[in-house]
């Protein structure tokens, strides 16, 4: 269905293009469709015409004079590209990575403490403090509760470890980028 829509859209735009009726946005849309292989139903000459006319370098009608906007944009690029800005940006990223790593490490410790405490109390439970548990109103035994809690805690632990590994990989990648 989507493919059919693309074919129809491509054909409509191409006809408009030959009639000189396409807007700049529509011409870019045609270009994108062409590069994404969505205009393969067109003849080779149609495809070449679009590619050549939209992509090729041509003799200039007059020398290009940079606008104030161009100059401001280049100044902006220079500022972002300056070593000072890049170092500040890298330091910011590094700080954030440290914060995330610390939070995850603290969470893992807390979870481990909770898990051990839970296991300890589960084996030394006092009959007076034993509150019945249920799932959707259905009573479940304490051993089932313990089993489920353990499973969920292990799952959370595994995800946190995975997150921590991802952060370590990111830090390594940033280090490699900085070294280059």
């Amino acid at each position: 269905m989507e493919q059919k829509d693309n074919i129809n859209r491509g054909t409509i735009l191409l006809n408009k293009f030959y009639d000189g009726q396409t807007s700049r946005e529509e011409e870019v849309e045609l270009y994108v469709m062409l590069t994404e292989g969505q205009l393969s139903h067109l003849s080779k000459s149609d495809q070449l015409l679009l590619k050549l006319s939209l992509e090729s370098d041509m003799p200039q009608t007059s020398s290009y004079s940079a606008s104030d906007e161009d100059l401001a944009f280049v100044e902006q690029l220079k500022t972002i590209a300056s070593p000072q800005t890049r170092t500040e940006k890298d330091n910011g990223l590094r700080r954030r990575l440290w914060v995330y790593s610390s939070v995850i490490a603290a969470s893992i410790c807390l979870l481990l403490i909770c898990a051990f405490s839970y296991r300890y109390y589960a084996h030394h439970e006092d009959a007076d403090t034993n509150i019945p548990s249920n799932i959707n109103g259905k009573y479940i035994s304490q051993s089932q509760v313990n089993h489920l809690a353990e499973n969920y805690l292990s799952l959370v632990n595994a995800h946190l470890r995975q997150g921590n590994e991802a952060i370590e990989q990111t830090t390594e990648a940033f280090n490699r980028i900085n070294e280059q």
Partner: protein
Amino acid sequence: MGIGAIMSEQDFIEKFLRHKVVVTMICRTYLKSDILAQDAVQEIYLKLWLQKEQLVEVDSPKAYVMRVARNYCIDYLRKEQNKFMLQSLDETFPPIIASNDLDGQAQIEQAELEKTLQHWLSKIKEPKRSVFILAHYDHLGHDEIADKLNLTEVNVRVILSRLRKELKQELTEVLN
């Protein structure tokens, strides 16, 4: 320009930054958001700026910058799709200097076709030639071309229509 040549700020503007409008449109078409497109354009030009010494070797700046924009957007969308899959950054940040995806034979054919276009253009009289170049190379709107060349918008549309059909005829003959 040969190896070791330096790309000045002026060269960078004339060859690459002048296509910022079309780069923005490509990004907007792919990313479907003005804000994302603006960020993408800044990121693309920043990477080009940082590697501008290597850009002196680029033969066709417009085609090159358009290809870089496309690659950037596709990569961005792929990353968004795989956001929750753990990937190394090496995979998600391809080098900004896109490898030439044409093989030797295709490059020769491309060069031949470019020559055909240049030859065909050289035969076109003014102001038609300027209309064609301003519309395709500089991506000006019909109203801007009309203003620049003292024509009406209808004239511009008619000229473009005729020239595109003529060029198609020319290309069909070359291909046959």
